[in-house]
């Protein structure tokens, strides 16, 4: 079972987001980056499958050298090798194009990633990769088991869950509770230094550029109304918030 896990490097979910250069650039100063939380689920399940069925797990990241700490961490958690496509991940299509280019040169049974990143949340990369490779792409996958050449999958759909089976190879966008996040052990951390991390140039060019960013409007003050004063709440909703 050879698995490619695509990981993104995203700001820590508690990071304070600011912009610079006339709001055209995300200000990375003082911001800690982490592996995308949904990608982390995909990585954890991929490592479990490798332990269960044998094979290798390769992690792929599209990013500059700044993302190497997150790649090393994926290696410390249990991936065998890593590939970094040396480029800014400018848009979903560009990232998908890089993944597809790597996948075409290798033979992976599964290409796994998070259902979406937590920075831009487009949630379309797995679909585009599927289109580029001519493979089925399923998301958001909550449960995954492999039986021979068949993947048994449970995924979230509007109002419930769907169970389905599909033949490998597949592309999967994953989310909890597919596996529990894994914690890097001392042994993993130390061996990660010796695992291969290959850097390769990007194919193609980004199709988009950012004109400007803006933050959502700040939340208004929160007014606490005692439970026994429901009439006051209705009055505020009607006359102040004007939502009733």
């Amino acid at each position, binding site marked *: 079972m050879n698995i490619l896990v695509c990981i993104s490097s995203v700001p820590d979910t508690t990071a304070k987001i600011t912009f610079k250069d006339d709001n055209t650039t995300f200000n990375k100063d*003082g911001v*800690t980056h982490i592996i995308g939380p949904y990608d982390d689920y995909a990585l954890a399940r991929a490592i479990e499958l490798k332990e269960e069925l044998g094979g290798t797990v390769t992690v792929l990241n599209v990013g500059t050298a700044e993302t190497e700490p997150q790649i*090393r*961490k994926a290696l410390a958690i249990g991936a065998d090798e890593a590939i970094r496509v040396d480029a800014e991940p400018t848009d979903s299509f560009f990232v998908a194009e890089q993944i597809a280019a790597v996948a075409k040169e290798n033979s992976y049974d599964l290409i796994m990633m998070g259902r979406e990143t937590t920075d831009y949340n487009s949630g379309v990369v797995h679909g585009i990769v599927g289109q580029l490779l001519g493979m089925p792409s399923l998301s958001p996958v909550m449960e995954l088991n492999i039986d021979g050449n068949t993947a048994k999958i449970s995924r979230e759909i509007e109002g419930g869950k769907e169970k389905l089976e599909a033949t490998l190879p597949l592309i999967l966008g994953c989310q909890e509770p597919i596996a529990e*996040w894994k*914690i890097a052990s*001392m*042994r993993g*951390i130390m061996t990660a230094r010796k695992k291969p991390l290959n850097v390769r140039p990007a194919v193609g060019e980004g199709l988009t550029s950012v004109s400007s960013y803006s933050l959502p409007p700040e939340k208004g003050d929160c007014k606490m109304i005692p439970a026994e004063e429901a009439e006051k709440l209705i009055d505020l909703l009607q006359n102040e918030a004007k939502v009733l």
Partner: protein
Amino acid sequence: MTLFSRKHIDFLLHEVSDLPELLKEEYFSGHDRETADMVLDTAFEIAQKEIEPHFVDSDQKEANYENGEVKVHPGVHGFVKSQAESGLLSATFPEEVGGSQLPESVAGAAAFIELCHSNSFPMYTDLLSGCVKLINSFGTTEQKETYISKMLTANWMGTMCLTEPQAGSSLAEINTKATPQNDGTYKIDGQKIFISAGDHDITENIIHLVLARIDGAPAGAKGISLFIVPKNNPKNCSESNDVKTIGLFHKMGQKATPAVHLAFGAEGKCTGYLLGKPNQGLPQMFKMMNSSRLGVGLTGLALSSAAYYTSNQYAHERKQGRIPGGNENVLIAEHPDVKRMLLKQKAIHEGGLALFIQVYSYLDWQKAGKEIEKYAALTELLTPVCKFYGSDQGYHSVNEGLQVLGGYGYTSDFPLEQMARDVRILSIYEGTNGIQAQAVLGRQVQVNGGAPFQLLRAEIEKTLSHLNDSCLFKRDFETSFKKLQQVTSTLLSKQNPTELLADATLYTEFLSLICVGWQWLKMSLATEQMDTEFNESFKQTIGYFFRYEFTKCLYLSEILLKENKITV
């Protein structure tokens, strides 16, 4: 909620401390900055996953003692398992016993992160690690083979058993007996109290390190030996070794860690194994005690950090009172008195942590085989100072945090109430702060003709030599530092030991302010690489420290230089 500043920890490790140089040493060649960063990530992930969710629940459901058995909160089981599986438990041990030779500076920072999320859980593994250190240092080959791998994988846990009902701070008065047997083992008979994590249902065996007196041994401290006393037979854990819990103490805080009363040999069937040489128990045990003392001080700083981030958030959400001349209520964080309280908390753990990492680096240099005697002397001198400062100031910080929350802080709806109960023990156990102060002034400052103190002076002067004379705080520091040297010689000239030690606590407070002040100056030399936000905050905190805290040196020196006719 964030309970610590990773940026400050990274700053201390990578910009201020000796870690970059230490990582060039052969002993630490398995590590680099990236591994150090990942270890801290792992500690945070364990804290988030295995500690934080149980912080309140493990306080409300304290360990339970029924039918002679102690059951602890289920969260502790998960934490111990994670700590062992991740390898953090064995991280600082040599590779030959299954460790990773991680620098103590990094391990200390990782421990700080975990302790910010609960000070009770890591106590189990700290005690376990301390036991293994002793067995590894003084044990026979057979003892090492029997215990170390089982303990470093947390299949067996460990404790230290010192206090007896009649002998608390006066360990020389312990009377647990060890009677030699024909097979080279000893029969142990006695009782020990306040044994933290002394019994639980986490592992199949608990290895107690027990201070006892061999029949016919000299009286006092010179006749105390150290024994390995397993709860169950190490060759067959289903067979009891006659170690029984006869009571559980109901404490005001740290409720996830039981403190038990143990009876050894109530049925005359308790076997102990001598660890190290006869009558060397106390100096051997101090090897573990010193590491535990650092752990206790660090816990105080971690509680300070957790309290600060909690009260800081509250102060930025709660609107009360107007600024003079203003028309509307403002966030309480805008009131100068609240700002002062928040800065006090921040200054305590940020400055204190720098001092701890300094001491951890002294331990690391010893492991690297560099100037071992020098760094050992500095460690010995600063360990009681660290225990004293961390626990004492941690208490004050949590108290300020609770004050920021006002009436809400006094309720169990907010974590400050629990923190205030948890922090109180720190200045009491592992040697009260009074005992630490006596160790500083009665021994460490005087030993070898005052050599450790001179080494510290040289370290401080090295930092001062790098500071530009325009540094705002350099002159204030130099004035108080000279006063400390004057106070030290005045006190050491006293012939009457009671007079010398009467105000040892004030002396240690003075010395600790000098040491932390030194660290603030050292930090000020390393801020260039940091971003604007960090530097703004740093300027405010160092300014607070030298205006409000460091100036206490003046009144302390005044008291210490006057003849004491009140308590002597």
